[in-house]
């Protein structure tokens, strides 16, 4: 499949941190509107893979394409890699929304300001315009009563929804979710997953790293199982019921018994 | 820019002689300061309010005033109230008293880090107080305090440069004597700075190594 035809394309990406090899050559294609869930044991490279897609981590080898455009680097006529200018990388990151396991809501601003500031700084919108849009988004994720609250008085579920509004306000073309519910108390997982589900219904292209197999089964078009920096198995959610590889079988058994 | 660095090279033998004086003075002051700091730390545990207040005042005065002024007070000021000191002795007194205040605070922090259980265990074994201090507490205090103490030593080395102002012939004064004859100040000073740099830099690196070696031993 031609890399440029897919919405998100990862080709031969490798990444090592000193002695540790996080990614050993990963290929991944995601079509527009598709929802892909990545599962696997901790340390298998899922988060690293996600972070290479918006160039928060630079792969040692390989290339990443989003909507046909190679990000982070280009290859010139001589076949040599040249880094793309910071401004282009920043602009691209703005179109890719990311959610983190520990929310990373900015504590020095109110919930509203968290969603207003990126618009003003990156999109150069006026404060009034930014506030209007922010309010409607925070309303959409069910936080209209909390907009003037400071992050330290918000619950985990509320914080993740602020982070969601903050990501959505940049009008992303793809969303990367890195274990978004892993730090949440069980009662709050539901409200956050519901917010994600509504995104899926709106046709957003999403790549979600998660260990919520139930959620993955219900929203994913495709599930990818990774281990030790490679993709071991991928397929429809059916594969969770009937895993083909032994390693996926072992992983699923482990989850069942924990 | 017309600097003639042959002057730097020529100055080296003399500078190194001055460096020797700096090393001796620094070492002497540091050892005395450590003794003073240890003494004050022990006395502080007796919890006599008046004495602790005096110590606190001493520390506050030293930490709040410039070393240069302390040196002037020792050399020029003391004779007025009857204490005549020659330059060398006045310098030692000033730098020792200065460093002593900081050392006291460092050791106080180190003492806090010694678990109370250590003291209790030693006392419950019926050991004499002085033994408890010497064999149990102080070694741990010193061990914990190695990084800030080494840092304090480099501060002492740097402070000795100010003794040149009261005519003590250490490294900086030697440098001044040298360049006052041929006016190639920068060349001589670069050599001087290099010697101080090597001194201090080596010590701070050594401290890191010592810290790592001893860190392995601690449970």
């Amino acid at each position, binding site marked *: 499949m031609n890399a440029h035809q897919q919405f998100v394309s990862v080709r031969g990406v490798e990444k090592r941190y000193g002695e540790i090899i996080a990614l050993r050559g990963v290929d991944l294609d995601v079509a527009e509107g598709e929802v892909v869930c990545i599962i696997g044991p901790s340390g298998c490279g899922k988060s690293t893979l996600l972070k290479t897609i918006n160039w*928060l981590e630079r792969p040692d080898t390989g290339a990443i394409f989003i909507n046909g455009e190679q990000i982070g680097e280009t290859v010139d006529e001589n076949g040599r890699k040249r880094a793309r200018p910071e401004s282009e990388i920043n602009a*691209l990151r703005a179109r890719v929304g990311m959610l983190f396991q520990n929310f990373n809501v900015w504590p020095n*601003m109110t919930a509203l300001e968290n969603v207003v500031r990126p618009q003003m700084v990156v999109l150069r919108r006026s404060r009034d315009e930014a506030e209007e849009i922010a309010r409607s988004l925070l309303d959409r994720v069910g936080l209209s009563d909390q907009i003037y609250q400071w992050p330290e008085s918000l619950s985990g579920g509320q914080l993740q929804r602020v982070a969601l509004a903050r990501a959505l306000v940049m009008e992303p073309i793809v969303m990367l979710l890195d274990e978004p519910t892993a730090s949440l108390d069980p009662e709050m997982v539901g409200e956050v997953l519901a917010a994600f589900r509504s995104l899926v219904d709106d046709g957003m292209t999403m790549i979600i790293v998660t260990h919520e197999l139930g959620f993955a089964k219900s929203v994913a078009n495709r599930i990818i199982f990774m281990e030790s920096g490679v993709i071991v198995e991928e397929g429809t959610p059916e594969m969770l019921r009937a895993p083909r590889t032994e390693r996926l079988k072992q992983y699923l058994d482990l989850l069942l018994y924990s | 820019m017309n600097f003639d660095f042959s002057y730097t090279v020529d100055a080296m033998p003399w500078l190194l002689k001055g460096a020797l004086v700096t090393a001796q003075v620094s070492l002497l002051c540091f050892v005395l300061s450590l003794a003073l700091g240890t003494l004050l730390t022990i006395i502080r545990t007796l919890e006599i309010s008046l004495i602790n207040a005096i110590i606190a005042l001493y520390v506050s005065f030293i930490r709040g005033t410039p070393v240069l002024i302390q040196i002037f007070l020792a050399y020029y000021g003391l004779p007025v109230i009857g204490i005549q000191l020659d330059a060398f002795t006045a310098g030692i007194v000033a730098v020792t008293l200065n460093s002593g205040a900081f050392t006291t605070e460092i050791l106080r922090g180190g003492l806090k880090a010694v678990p109370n259980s250590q003291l209790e265990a030693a006392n419950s074994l019926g050991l004499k107080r002085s033994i408890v201090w010497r064999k149990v507490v102080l070694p741990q205090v010193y061990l914990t305090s190695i990084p800030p103490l080494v840092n304090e030593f480099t501060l002492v080395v740097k402070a000795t440069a100010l003794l040149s102002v009261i005519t003590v012939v250490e490294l900086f004064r030697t440098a001044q004597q040298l360049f006052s004859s041929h006016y190639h100040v920068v060349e001589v000073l670069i050599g001087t700075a290099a010697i101080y740099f090597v001194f201090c830099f080596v010590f701070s690196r050594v401290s890191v190594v010592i810290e790592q070696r001893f860190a392995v031993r601690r449970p």
Partner: protein
Amino acid sequence: MDLDFSILVEHREVLINGFKLTIFIVICSIFLGMVLGAILAIGRMSQRLYLRVPAVTIVEFIRNTPFIIQAFLFYHGLLALGGALPEVLVGILALALYSSAYYAEILRAGILAVPHGQSQSARAVGMSYFQSLRNVVFPQMWPIALPPMASQTMSLVKESSILSTITVWELTLSAQSVQGITFRPFELFFLIAILYWGTNESIAFGIRRLEKLLQKRQSRRVSKEASGRAEYVT
């Protein structure tokens, strides 16, 4: 023992002028030092070697040599290069550079103390490195960096006395000149010791008040009844 503190009153003008100059030099050096310190801190943390190596070299040189040597190098170096700057300016430059090395380390530690995820999420929405510093990292860094910054500033006040050795007419040199006339070193140096000490205590006091203010702000924010249009930002 024969002390005469009246000479302090008699020569107060010289001493007051010296004190005023010391304060002026300190304030200028604080601001210039912080700016230079920020530049050095960013250089220290840069991935680009051509920025990192000079920054590290400068910081290590300043921290491992006595300030009096640096002051002399500035003074005589400028003379040798043919420059004729007023000593006060030379003094401020030397003192600012000296403190910038220490400020840089404090800033660097402060920036590293802010959780990495904070700047990551800022970059993830498309902010540049500097935008993430300004909007997310620096505001979170200040409470952490304030105490060491304060103590470094108090050091700055004390080190300014060394500028007397390069003929800057600050407090110490002024006192020495009065000493030369009155031959009363004890009274004089005791007084200026008190003046330095008082200045530092004032700074310490000011910082304590500032910390209390920041803490009050913090607790106000946590209250669940955030009513109306509270301030958005720090």
